[in-house]
C-alpha cells in the first residue's frame, strides 16, 4: 500500500548507510554485504505492516540485519560456535600478512571473532548503541549485554595485532 511503500522508502533513505556499514563490518566481505543488506531490507518491507508505530525503527533494522547475517552464516555453524568452547584467540592464525595500518589490523581481527561477539562489539563501539538498545537488538537482558560485551572486548583485545 502506498503508506507502507512510502514509509519503507523513508526508512531506507534514513538508515541504508548505517545498516550497510554494520553488515559490511559484520561480514568483512563487501561483495556479500550488498546482497545481505538487500535481504535485510526486503525482510523489513515484508514485516513493516506489523511494526509497532512506537518501535525504534533504527534498532529494528539493526536486529533484522543481525538476523539476516546470522542466517547467512548458517545455523549449523552458529550452533557449533555455541557448543564448543571458544578457541583461544592467541591460537588463531593470522589472515594474510602483518597489517599495514589500523584499519587493516581491525579488518583482520574482526572475522576471527564469533559472530555474536562481533555484532555486540560493533553495535556498541561503532554504532554507539546503549546497553538497553543492545538488549533490544540482540535479544539479551541487561546482564546478558554486560557479559557479552565484556567477552567481546576481551576477545578483540587478545585477537588484535597492531600494525608494524
Amino acid at each position, binding site marked *: *500500500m*502506498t*503508506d507502507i*511503500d*512510502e*514509509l519503507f*522508502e*523513508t526508512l531506507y533513505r534514513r538508515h*541504508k548507510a548505517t545498516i*550497510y*556499514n554494520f553488515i*559490511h563490518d559484520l561480514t568483512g566481505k*563487501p561483495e*556479500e554485504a*550488498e*546482497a545481505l*543488506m*538487500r*535481504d*535485510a*531490507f*526486503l*525482510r523489513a518491507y*515484508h*514485516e513493516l505492516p*506489523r*511494526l*509497532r*508505530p*512506537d*518501535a*525504534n*525503527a*533504527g534498532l*529494528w533494522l539493526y*536486529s533484522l540485519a543481525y538476523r*539476516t547475517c546470522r*542466517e*547467512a*552464516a*548458517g545455523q*549449523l*555453524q552458529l550452533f557449533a560456535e555455541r557448543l564448543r568452547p571458544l578457541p583461544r584467540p592467541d591460537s588463531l592464525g593470522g589472515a594474510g600478512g602483518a597489517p599495514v595500518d*589500523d584499519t587493516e*589490523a*581491525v*579488518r583482520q581481527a574482526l572475522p576471527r571473532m564469533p559472530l555474536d561477539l562481533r555484532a555486540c*562489539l*560493533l553495535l556498541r*563501539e*561503532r554504532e554507539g548503541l546503549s*546497553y538497553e538498545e543492545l538488549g533490544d537488538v540482540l535479544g539479551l537482558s541487561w546482564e546478558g549485554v*554486560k*557479559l557479552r*560485551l*565484556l567477552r567481546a*572486548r*576481551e576477545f578483540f*583485545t587478545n585477537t*588484535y595485532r597492531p600494525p608494524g
Partner: protein
Amino acid sequence: MSHRRFAELVSLYCDSRLTGPQDALLTHHLAQCAQCKSRLTAYRETGRLLRHMPRPAPTPAAEGALFQALREGRGPRQTAGRAGHQWTVALVSVASLALVLLFGLALVQSPALPQETPAPGPFVRAPNLLPPTPVPITGRPQLYAVNNTDIGSITVVDAETYTVVKTVELAFRPWTLALSRPLKRLFVGGQSTSIAVVDTEANELVDSLPIGSPVGRLLVHPNGKVLYASHPSDGSISLVDLARRKASTVRVGGQPTALTATPDGRWLFAASSDGQVFQIEPSALRKHKAFTLRPGGLPAEERLTYDRPALAVAPDGRLVYAALLAYGEVWTINPDTGETQRFRVPAKGWPRNAAVSPDGRRLYLTYTSYDRLPVRSGFMTDEPPSGGLLVLDAATLQEISHNDTTPFFGLALRQDGQVLYLTNLFHQTLYALESQSQQLLGAVDVGERPADIAFKP
C-alpha cells in the same frame, strides 16, 4: 574481589555505567593494579580503533537491486550457509530473468493493456489553466474503490443499492484514483509507470498514460484539462495535459503524496512524508513555497511516526488544512499570504485522508492507529490496527464528533455533502454513512485492501 569481577567493572566503566560506589571501588583498584589499568587502556583503544574505521557506502546497483526485487514482489532469500547463499543468488537471478521475459511476453500479448511507452519528455508550455468546468451528471451514481493488492483491481459499486457491479482488473498495484471532468473517465495510478484510464460508462480499461514513475496520488484540476500526479519515489509532481497527452514535471523534493488544489486551480498543494507541505503554482510550473510543519512535542527522530499530513482545501479556496493527527495538530495555510496557524485537536493515529464538506463547515479526517496495544514486547505487533473518523468544525477546528469503531482509510463525499463514503483497508469493506448523524446507510464487501475511493454522481 576477583580480577574477573574487576574486568566486568572496567567494561562498564568504559561505558559510564558504574554506580557511585562501584566507580569509587574501581578507581581505587586501578590506582594499584597495572593489569586492570592495561585492560582499561586496551578497551578504550578498541573503541577508538572501531570508531575510526572508514564507512564505505553501498553502490547504486545495490539500491537498484533492492527496489527491483520489491517491484517483482520478491521476499528475502532463504540463506543457509555461504554456498547456499551463492546458489540462491544464482537461482534468483535466473528466476528474475525468466519472470522478466514472461512478464514482457504477457504484456506484448495482452490486448486489454496498451503497451507502455517511454516516459514523456519535458513540456515546454504550462498547462492551460482555465476556470472550472461544470460537471454534467449522467447515469447511476457509482463508487470506485482501488484494491490495493499485488493483483490490483478497481471495484465498482452501485451507490444506491450498495452492490458490486463490476471488478476492473489492472496489471499493477493501484493506490489512487481520480475522476475526470466531465465524469467519463477514471484515472488510476499506483506502482506503475503508467496511469490506467477506465471508461466510467462501460467500466472498462480503455487507455494508458505514460507517466514515468510510480504515482502516490492523483488529482484532476478543477477545469478538467490537467491531471496532477505525485511521485513519492523521486520527489516530483507531474502535470499531465490530458488533451495533448503530455506531461511536465515540477521538482519539489521530499516524498510528495497527498494532493489538493484550490478551486480556481491557481495553487496546488502536496504533502510529503517528512512533514513538509509544498505550494505549487501550476501555471508557472514551479514550486512557490515549502512549509515545514514542526509539531510541538516532536518525538525522537527515530520514532516511527507517520507524519505525512493529510490535506484538504476549503470550498472557497481560502484555507488549506494539513492534519498531523498523530501529534494532535491541524495546521491551516492561507494560500495567498502563506500564513500558517496551528490548532490543537484530539491526538489520533496516522492521518489517512481529509475532506471538507461542500458548505465549508466540517473537516473530515480518517486515521488508523495502534493505541490499544498491549505492553511493549519486542518490535512487532499482531494487534489489529484501530482507527476511525474525526469530524472537526472547519472554522474553529474544535471536535464535533469522532467514530473510533473501525480503521477508516479512504474518504469521499457525495456532491451534496450528505453522505460520507469510507473504506476500511483491513476489513474489505466500503461504508456509506449519513454525514451528520454518522448513521450507517450501507456497507458492501469490495474485496481485498480497499484504499482510495471516488464517488461519481
